């Protein structure tokens, strides 16, 4: 499996650490109700198809990446830096 890091280029999967779905980027505001935190930490669409998830280029540039990926075919259609992601 290979991912194309926007900075380092195309790399073998072994260089990356996966933490979960893109939901982790939408941290509830301070004082948000616990239900929002349950949603943020636990509940997932978990689609069998295209999803967005978060990978860390551990052996490379230490950037967190948002990857648009198909969970059935493993086809990867987009990779962008979390730090520079569109809002």
């Amino acid at each position, binding site marked *: *499996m290979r991912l194309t890091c926007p900075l380092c280029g195309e790399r*073998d*999967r*072994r260089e990356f*650490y*996966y*933490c*979960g*779905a893109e939901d982790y980027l939408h941290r509830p505001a301070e004082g948000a109700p*616990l*239900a929002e935190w*349950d*949603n943020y*930490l*636990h*509940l*997932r*669409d*978990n*689609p*069998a198809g295209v*999803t967005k*998830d978060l*990978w860390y280029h551990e052996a490379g540039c230490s950037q967190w990446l948002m990857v648009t*990926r198909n*969970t*059935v*075919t*493993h086809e990867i259609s987009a990779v962008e830096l979390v730090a520079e992601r569109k809002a």
Partner: protein
Amino acid sequence: MRYSGLKVITEGLFGNKGWTPAWRDPAPKAEYDVIIIGGGGHGLSTAYYLAKNHGITNVAVLEKGYLGSGNIGRNTTIVRANYFLPGNSEFYSHSMKLWEGLEADLNYNVMHSQRGLINLFHSDGQRDAFVRRGNAMINQGDDAILLDRDGVREHLPYLDFDNTRFPIYGGLLHPRGGSARHDAVAWGYARGADQRGVDLIQNCEVTGIDIENGVVRGVQTTRGAIRAKKVGIVVAGRSSQVAAMAGMRLPIESHILQAFVTEGLKPVINHVISFGMGHFYISQSDKGGLVFGGDLDFYASYAARGNLPMVEHVMEAGMTLMPMIGRAKVLRSWGGIMDMSPDGSPVIDKTHVDGLFIDCGWNYGGFKAVPASGWCMAHLMATGEPHEVARKFRLDRFATGHLLDEEGTGSQHNLH
């Protein structure tokens, strides 16, 4: 038809013509009292215990492929009761007791063999953690023995005690731990349920769940609509897709777990062994293949196949722990779809829809849970109350913070 050695002989003498089908292959009726979605290990055992324990036999098990086509059909077949958190330890202890009577109960040889399971540890810290686990097992009424280095060497002389990266400090022996023939468990429960009148319906995929003002009415399938008063979702890796048909978003992420089997070998490994400093556990099947696995591929996936980095890590772990398996050749590698939950423990609970129940979150420990999961899901669906040993497997426990996190790695789904 009852199976026995005598029957095998008498049938053998007459060309084996007399054997009847292990289960019928009925077309779906228009309505049942209970529908179980998912014809895997947990779905079949739920149907079996609904019939056996609660006398509810107007039941249909709907399976989109062939019976036992999911994780029950491909796993490392380990059966153990070595959990330490209250909520888990009583559940798996109950499952182990059911395993120990399963052949007689099902009249089907699932080849459950308790040759002993050894968790190795490689530091004082790991030893203390395993001692806490072992004491919890004994407090639960199960068995655990602390082995020191020489104790491990007695059982497993072929491990590398001298030239390895993480020296072996000792191991926690779970004598009643072992393995079973996975397909036989699915077929045994299927035959048992079928004999009690349960309809096992294959090639029948559920495409929708009918709900009218908060009450479940039945399901839509590729073989037509079927009505029911109670519906159980027991589909492991596909839980999110089926739950979404009822408007539910689950705390589940589906992941790939690879496992491997070697060519057949004369007996060389008699225990189930797990390595403490890398993802590697192994046992030898009765047919002679070394069956071993490691950890998830660590990215969400439904592809039921994995990639090389984890394969190589598992092989390297095997080589540092027991280099004598080096010349065994991997014959086949496969990947199952694991329904990972935020604390590594399962969910057997009602849902917000009246009459709709969910049994999921088995991470990669579902095989040993097949008997108790069916027992408790049947109890819940029949009585509306959770069974005593599954009381803590609540769907809302993540929202309330009553976690059952055996690994202690937190809410990230793939860390359990």
